[in-house]
């Protein structure tokens, strides 16, 4: 394995013992203003470039800056990295970096027994303890006895380290996250030069900030190396990933990249209509940077206009995309209905978050499945796809556009907050291996009918304005078969409702066979969809290692469902459906296949841990 970026010899010779381990889970936690997301991202990228497999879970409050030192203001970033396959951000952190008492309080309960806590000792004074609701100092009252607590005066050490930069106290102490990162780099034997390069380019215009941050990072590293409290460091080898070129992507980045790829493959221009909403805004930010590709981004006045403009762009021949989260989908629903009626290609991304209503904007949930499959007036079938990993978001975006154009239909993608913000190493595909998405416009006026049908797909022609002699009118009123004229005829309505349903139902012809993890038959099958993929697969692995007859499948096509599911279900004694909602896919599968499946669910705004799945399955076996 080689690396494209320089990872030369930043690691200094160290005299402390090094222990090789397979994987580790660490969590950075601090105030929202402490730069924990940035610190976590730096550690992630360094580990990814180093060659580990990784999975991350950023966890931040909905408020941009909740009161400093308060419990609601705690922001966290968890990363699981290892030399073997990593599918989840990890059930429990092995190491917690807590920048203040509130961060300790919020996170200590998650830590593994005997885990390590690195605390910023300087912040454990009366006011902060008070804000965190501690009546006494947990560093002194023995309450952390079951952990290895490494008390580090992060603030004062940082200030000492950055003296030469000339930054004042206030600015200077903001570098303490880099000091902490330096410590963790030493602990896990990672080079720091990737982060040094990043700091240099990020703060290019401000040399004293570069100097201070680099100084803090290095000081943290050497502090860990020389101070006695840090006794051991750990090495985690490169993971055995499939050969290829990799980069790190979040789900939202992957959707944006997938959309641009689909654009290039379709020979059309990409139109993205969107309105700012957590956790989908990053797709807008990402695509807005791609103007040189001819990507059109439209930040609309509201969710409705965002999809309306996208549908207009689709009518006029663009590859149209709109993205939002659950509450935004609620607003877009009427337009989704119009897209179904007018049979125009349009991809709608829902980055699900905790609901109902405003709910938990920054937390993950899978509770919009019913909304996606059923949530519109009338008989309104829409294909629904769900990616399983951040990297899969790329492929799902391409698949969504393919279905949208091939069948002339809106397509919904159900991603979620966990996939959107979480990241993983992603093997960069060969562009030539990605199939073409050429679905030409109608141009032939001879016998042109706006609602005539392709025999195989039942798609109607895509006849865009500007094409001579194809002038026609579409709209939300019921269409007469073939001509597309307004029709209130009862027979025609019945026919058209069934036709639209059939068009979507027969997309099953494009769905590849469902991959089964484990044996194709057995005692138990765990069924999942979306971002729970990693946890379910790992839980299955764990149960199988115990000798239990358990397999699992991931459903990427929620509507229509894969055609082989019935057969697969029939080969297992018990079927479990694990999801972060009250059992939505479970209900869908029960009603579709009349199977007595068992629901495994939680709605805490967090991904499943591997154990909560494995334990529940095991309890039924």
């Amino acid at each position: 394995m080689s690396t494209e970026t320089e990872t030369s010899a930043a690691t200094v010779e160290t005299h402390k013992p090094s222990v090789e381990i397979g994987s580790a889970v660490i969590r950075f936690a601090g105030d929202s203003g402490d730069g924990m997301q940035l610190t976590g991202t730096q550690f992630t990228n360094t580990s990814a470039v180093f060659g580990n497999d990784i999975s991350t879970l950023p966890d931040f409050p909905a408020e941009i800056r909740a009161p400093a030192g308060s419990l609601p203001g705690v922001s966290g970033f968890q990363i699981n990295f290892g030399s073997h396959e990593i599918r989840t951000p990890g059930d429990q952190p092995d190491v917690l970096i807590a920048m203040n008492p509130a961060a300790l309080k919020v996170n200590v309960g998650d830590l593994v027994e005997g885990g390590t806590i690195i605390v910023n000792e300087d912040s454990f004074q009366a006011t902060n303890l008070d804000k965190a609701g501690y009546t006494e100092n947990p560093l002194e009252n023995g309450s952390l006895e079951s952990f290895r607590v490494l008390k580090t005066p992060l603030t004062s050490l940082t200030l000492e380290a950055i003296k030469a930069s000339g930054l004042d106290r206030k600015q200077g102490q903001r570098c303490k996250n880099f000091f902490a990162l330096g410590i963790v780099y030493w602990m896990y034997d990672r080079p720091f030069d990737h982060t040094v390069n990043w700091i240099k380019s990020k703060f290019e215009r401000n040399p004293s900030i570069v100097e201070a941050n680099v100084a803090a990072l290095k000081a943290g590293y050497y502090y860990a190396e020389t101070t006695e409290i840090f006794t051991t460091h750990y090495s985690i080898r490169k993971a055995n990933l499939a050969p290829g070129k990799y980069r790190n992507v979040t789900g939202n980045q992957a959707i944006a990249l997938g959309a641009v790829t689909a654009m290039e493959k379709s020979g059309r221009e990409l139109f993205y209509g969107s309105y700012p909403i957590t956790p989908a805004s990053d797709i807008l930010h990402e695509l807005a940077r791609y103007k040189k590709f001819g990507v059109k981004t439209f930040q609309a006045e509201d969710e409705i206009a965002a999809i309306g403009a996208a549908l207009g762009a689709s009518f006029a021949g663009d590859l149209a995309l709109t993205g939002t989260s659950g509450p935004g989908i609620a607003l877009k629903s009427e337009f989704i209905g119009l897209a179904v009626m007018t049979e125009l290609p349009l991809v709608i991304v829902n980055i699900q978050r905790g609901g109902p209503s405003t709910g938990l904007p920054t937390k993950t949930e899978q509770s919009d499945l019913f909304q996606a499959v059923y949530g519109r007036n009338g008989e309104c079938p829409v294909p629904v796809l769900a990616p399983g990993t951040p990297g899969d978001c790329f492929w799902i975006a391409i698949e969504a556009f393919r279905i949208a154009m091939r069948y002339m239909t809106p397509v919904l993608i159900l991603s979620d907050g966990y996939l959107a913000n979480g990241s993983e190493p992603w093997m960069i595909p060969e562009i030539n291996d990605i199939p073409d998405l050429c679905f030409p416009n109608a141009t032939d006026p001879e016998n042109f009918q706006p609602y005539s049908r392709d025999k195989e797909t039942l798609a109607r022609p895509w006849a865009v304005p500007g094409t001579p002699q194809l002038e026609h009118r579409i709209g939300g009123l019921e269409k007469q078969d073939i001509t597309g004229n307004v029709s209130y005829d009862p027979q025609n309505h019945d026919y058209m409702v069934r036709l639209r349903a059939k068009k979507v139902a027969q997309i099953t012809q494009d769905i590849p066979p469902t991959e089964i993890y484990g044996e194709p038959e057995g005692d138990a099958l765990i069924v999942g969809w979306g971002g729970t993929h990693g946890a379910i697969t790992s839980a299955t692995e764990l149960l199988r290692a115990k000798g239990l007859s358990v397999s699992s499948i991931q459903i990427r096509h929620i509507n229509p469902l894969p055609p082989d599911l019935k057969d697969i279900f029939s080969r297992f004694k018990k079927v479990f459906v694990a999801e972060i909602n009250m059992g939505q896919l479970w209900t869908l599968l029960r009603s579709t296949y009349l199977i007595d499946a068992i629901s495994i669910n939680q709605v805490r705004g967090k991904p499943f841990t591997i154990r909560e799945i494995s334990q529940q399955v095991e309890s039924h076996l």
Partner: protein
Amino acid sequence: MTAKNDTGTLEINLNRKDFVSDQEVRWCPGCGDYAILAQMQKMVPNLGIPREKFVFVSGIGCSSRFPYYMNTFGFHTIHGRAPAVATGIKLANPDLKVFVITGDGDGLSIGGNHLIHCIRRNVDLTIVLFNNRIYGLTKGQFSPTSEMGKKTKSTPYGSVDNSINPLCVAIASEATFVARSIDIDTKHLGEILERAANHRGISFVEVYQNCNIFNDGAFTDFTERSKRSDHVLYLEDGQPMRFGKDKEKGIALRGMTPEIVEVGENHSVEDLLIHEETSPEPTLAYLLTRLNYPNFPVPVGVFRNVEKPEYSDLCQDQSRQAQEKEGKGNLEKLLHSGDTWTVT
């Protein structure tokens, strides 16, 4: 707008009939919509644009059936949302000539938000708002332009809502072309529609439209021949504002307040306000939108007509500049951007 054609050689030779679709028109007999449709079908051939480049987009309401009757591309969308759809169409293909047909309920009530934002962006669209001051398609409820106290099915004791003035909204939203006309004043309507269609950027036209079923006679004060000259002020660019049978009356300003003066003994034509539709400041145009019957004659014509960068042009410029500066996008490079590493 310059008349363009595809090949640059073929003359575009279209007439009214080319724009009449094969669909049976289903408005109530006597509805003002017929007159507007007729003027539109008569006007569009004058624009010199190939028929396939026209798109009529509408929302929901009686007026919004309009696209079905135009033999062009058409999109009958959902209630209030036509400006959003039209914006998307224009951004997808800036070469198209896009009209938005809306009504007082569609454009100012359910779709008010889209209307103001579409106007402020100065998208090259011609918005025609049919103002009949009533909900027709839902059978007669008061609308945002109905006068206060209006008795309708939903307000048997009279409406307690203040009404909204479409042109004030347009001007407050920085519209670059604002005009008003009246359904049965066909010649004037045709001219105004043509000027609006030739404006580059947003053009907003309010048309007083009689709903003879649910709000008959709402505009008779301005449509009846005997009353028209006293009740309607025809705006003409660069001309003093005069009205009355013999143009014997005019509008003058006292301080910031307009007043009606008799041209003759006490006032000469020089005292009258001169209309200046291209004035960079919208103050005069706004003041004119506030003139209302019965205290004043109702102004019709072009209130405001100014140039500003157009939205789809600005969007295209940005892409072009990005390409000039950064080079054309390369997908391979994009996928490989950021930190990468190779596993062998």
